[in-house]
């Protein structure tokens, strides 16, 4: 049994006697009346009294346990999986667990962020400790009651037991006494082999509410006296509001206010998550959404140009120019120039991908109720702490007087890391002196993006006369961000290695998009390696395994950001599970593997030709994310990653003309639809006891490469420029 010093985030435990959770929900009628808690409790018996044990849980006098999920839920299922970890160490029957979303509380929780697939990895210790310390306190309460040494006690699914005396007592009966116990200095943690909840299939705690349409999302917020607010933003990047004529709009039914406002007042300190192209906006307020939508069209706005109107054609030309010039060298191993000049064959390929929207199905929105001395914010936000900080500065209020509540998010994918919409809601509420729900139309959402940057990268490989790989050269660029990770594979596996990178400036706002940079570079890299393997006459998996073998036995360079044996592990697993060595007539296969956000994924795409078109039949996935918390949910997110990766690689692009996004809605921005998704997706996990890592992002990047490689097998055509289904270069 491992022990764990309870120093980590100790403040969460020291404040145990303070009221937890529920208080933050007051004031929101739907949250108060329809919490996940109450719905589940309908099937359970409500306790007469609750006892706060620590910031993560309280125990009812009848043994029902409420566990607070600290992190924002964007569909990655942490609202289920994080409490599972607490419940495991608490040793309670999951049937008796109620889950509630915690509010933002930096005094009690650390890293209340949904981003980088880090919730589980970063929460692993504190979640286990929350459960384990509570369990220990319950045991100590029982030991005191029974007058026995605590070491003689065990627990089992919500009961403390004494085997010798054949005694058993429920957590509910011990909760009052346990709440008064001092916090243990050290606690025992379970061995992975003893897990009863972790590693099983636990259903989404919000599932019943989702399938019955109960209010859950920010856009569902209703409050007495609340007004609907919408914004008008410039039609193109590089423009700002000059003047407005709101005469017609103001006279329309249900319209209460129209004004221009600044969401980021001059001089306030911003965080990285305040990225935003349009700090000055027009607000239209009214009684109902439809009335405001109509009035928006009646506001006459004069715009002025403040910076260059950009075009996609210029972006492509800019990339091509910069790729032909020298760039900043990010990594150099051996003597790549010499290897290339001595090469018998050089393979050079250029890959590109366009801007993308995050396209959360729930458009941006936020509720704000700003009073003279306080502010209540609520809505879908991946970075609530940053939002509170900026909102306090923008509103001129002390941070302690600004409360941020996280609603379940109708998707995030990086878009809701950038919480300008919450600041906008707050500023509108302050200026109009009413509670408001700010609602973005789909067009607002799509044309005021923090887009996935457009990228272009050139890969070169040198082969000697014996077809040995002697050097790799990578040169990458992108709008405001290079896609290149210089210390990722295949760095470390090739003697002569050169990485160059640069970025181009732009007035188009860009940001994180599910698996930033990896979402593009994995596909490029894995497509390129496929082509190199073919030139070398090698099987694509064998070729990669040889590279990993080199990186394990004799790594090149000082810093390689991956564990080669785990990387090879997922490839070996997928090779076996998908029976890679066995050919099936009519099935064309491509493989890829990638490591990002601390998890390893290998995928195989099976394509068939139907009516002359390649059709994805099956995606096979192998994952090493350490201990799997919620097995079926992990499969679900891997399936989503595969569909999402394939869909965007095939269909999606945001392009610009005169600074204006040419796509505004789902009629001309293509997302993958039902009939285009793979018929089957099967996921396998490497079974180990490595501390768990996240899956929100790692399931997406490699599938793009596997798709491109399968496409080549099926059609003989290599795909270099996304979206693959575009007739010609979009970007490219």
């Amino acid at each position, binding site marked *: 049994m491992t022990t764990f010093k309870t120093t980590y985030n100790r403040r969460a435990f020291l404040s145990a006697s303070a009221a937890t959770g529920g208080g933050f929900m007051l004031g929101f009628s739907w949250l108060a009346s329809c919490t996940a808690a109450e719905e589940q409790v309908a099937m359970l018996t409500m306790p007469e009294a609750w006892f706060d044990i620590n910031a993560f849980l309280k125990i009812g006098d009848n043994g029902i346990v409420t566990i607070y999920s600290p992190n924002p839920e*964007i*569909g*990655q299922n942490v609202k289920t999986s994080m409490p599972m970890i607490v419940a495991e160490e608490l040793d309670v029957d999951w049937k008796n667990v109620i889950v509630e979303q915690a509010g933002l509380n930096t005094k009690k929780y650390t890293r209340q962020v949904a981003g980088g697939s880090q919730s589980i990895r970063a929460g692993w210790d504190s979640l286990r400790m929350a459960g384990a310390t509570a369990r220990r306190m319950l045991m100590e309460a029982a030991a005191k009651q029974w007058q026995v040494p605590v070491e003689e006690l065990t627990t089992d699914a919500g009961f403390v037991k004494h085997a010798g005396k054949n005694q058993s007592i429920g957590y509910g009966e011990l909760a009052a006494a346990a709440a008064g116990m001092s916090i243990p200095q050290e606690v025992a943690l379970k061995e992975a082999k003893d897990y009863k909840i972790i590693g099983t299939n636990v*259903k*989404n705690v*919000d*599932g019943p509410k*989702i*399938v*019955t*349409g*109960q*209010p*859950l*999302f920010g*856009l*569902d917020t*209703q409050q007495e006296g609340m007004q*609907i607010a919408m914004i008008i933003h410039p039609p193109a990047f590089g423009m700002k509001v000059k003047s407005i004529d709101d005469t017609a709009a103001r006279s329309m*039914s249900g319209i209460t206010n129209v004004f221009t406002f600044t969401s980021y007042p001059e001089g306030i300190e911003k965080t990285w998550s305040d990225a935003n192209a349009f700090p000055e906006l027009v607000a239209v307020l009214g009684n*109902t*959404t*439809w009335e405001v*939508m*109509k009035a928006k069209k009646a506001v006459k706005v004069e715009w002025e140009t403040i910076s260059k109107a950009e075009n996609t054609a210029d972006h492509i030309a800019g990339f091509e120019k910069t790729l032909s010039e020298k760039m900043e060298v990010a990594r150099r191993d051996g003597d790549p120039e010499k290897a290339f000049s001595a090469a018998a064959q050089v393979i050079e390929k250029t890959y590109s991908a366009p801007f993308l929207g995050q*396209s*959360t*199905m*729930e*458009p941006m929105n936020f509720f704000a109720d700003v009073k003279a001395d306080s502010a209540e914010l609520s809505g879908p936000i991946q970075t609530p702490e940053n939002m509170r900080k900026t909102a306090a500065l923008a509103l001129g209020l002390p941070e302690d007087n600004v409360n941020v509540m996280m609603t*379940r*998010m*109708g*998707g*995030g*994918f990086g878009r809701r890391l950038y919480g300008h919409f919450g600041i906008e809601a707050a500023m509108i509420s302050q200026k109009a002196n009413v509670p408001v729900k700010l*609602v973005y*139309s*789909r067009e607002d959402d799509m044309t005021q993006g923090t887009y996935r940057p457009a990228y272009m990268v050139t890969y070169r490989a040198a082969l000697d006369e014996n077809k040995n790989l002697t050097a790799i050269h990578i040169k990458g660029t992108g709008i405001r961000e290079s896609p290149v990770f210089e210390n990722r594979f295949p760095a470390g596996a090739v003697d002569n290695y050169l990485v160059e990178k640069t970025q181009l400036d732009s007035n188009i706002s860009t940001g994180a998009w599910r698996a930033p940079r990896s979402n593009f570079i994995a596909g490029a890299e894995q497509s390129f390696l496929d082509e190199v393997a073919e030139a070398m006459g090698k099987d694509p998996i064998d070729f990669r395994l040889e590279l990993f073998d080199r990186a394990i036995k004799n790594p090149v360079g000082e810093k390689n950001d991956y564990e080669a044996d785990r990387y090879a592990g997922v490839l070996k697993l997928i090779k076996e599970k998908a029976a890679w060595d066995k050919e099936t007539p009519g099935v064309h296969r491509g493989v890829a593997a990638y490591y990002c956000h601390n998890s390893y994924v290998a995928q195989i795409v099976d394509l068939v030709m139907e009516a002359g078109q390649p059709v994805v039949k099956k995606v096979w996935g192998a994952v090493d994310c350490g201990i799997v918390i919620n097995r079926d*949910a992990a499969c*679900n*997110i891997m*399936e*989503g*990653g595969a*569909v*999402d990766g394939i*869909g965007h690689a095939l269909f999606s692009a945001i392009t610009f003309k005169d600074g204006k996004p040419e796509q505004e*809605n*789902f*009629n001309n921005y293509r*997302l*993958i*639809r*039902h*009939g285009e*998704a793979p*018929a*089957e*997706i099967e996921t396998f996990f490497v079974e180990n006891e490595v501390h768990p890592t996240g899956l929100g992002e790692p399931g997406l990047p490699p599938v793009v490469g596997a798709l491109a490689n399968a496409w080549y097998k099926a059609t003989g055509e290599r795909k270099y420029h996304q979206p693959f289904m575009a007739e010609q270069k979009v970007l490219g």
Partner: protein
Amino acid sequence: MANFDLLVNKQKHQVDVDPDTPILWVLRDHLNLVGTKYGCGIAQCGACTIHLDGVAARSCSVPVSSVGGKAITTIEGLSAKADHPVQKAWIEHDVPQCGYCQAGQIMSASALLKANPNPSDEDIDVAMHGNICRCGTYVRIKAAIKTAAMSK
């Protein structure tokens, strides 16, 4: 503004709204039935799917003035106890990720099964084509529809 009599989930309602107001916003803003979701406003994503006399319709593009006496069913009225075969199948397959599009998916799926109790894969693809899921739960949705079809 004008008064409209509506039959929503077997209950009569009268609303005073502009005739061009889409049913979506009548449901969400006037009747506080927020299970029907706004996704695109142009009948391209399916998040707002409801039933009009049992047939799937995109409520964002149906003006209240065109509904007449047709019975409106929303996700909240699909079943009394969350026990419609499609809802049960959705839970069984643990379909949702973010969950935002799922009410629309369920309404499209339940309308499909009403019209075609044993749909083929192709039937499902056609009927569900208008419902986007950005999280990519399509494989589970199809499996859940098949489970629901079997359970009828």
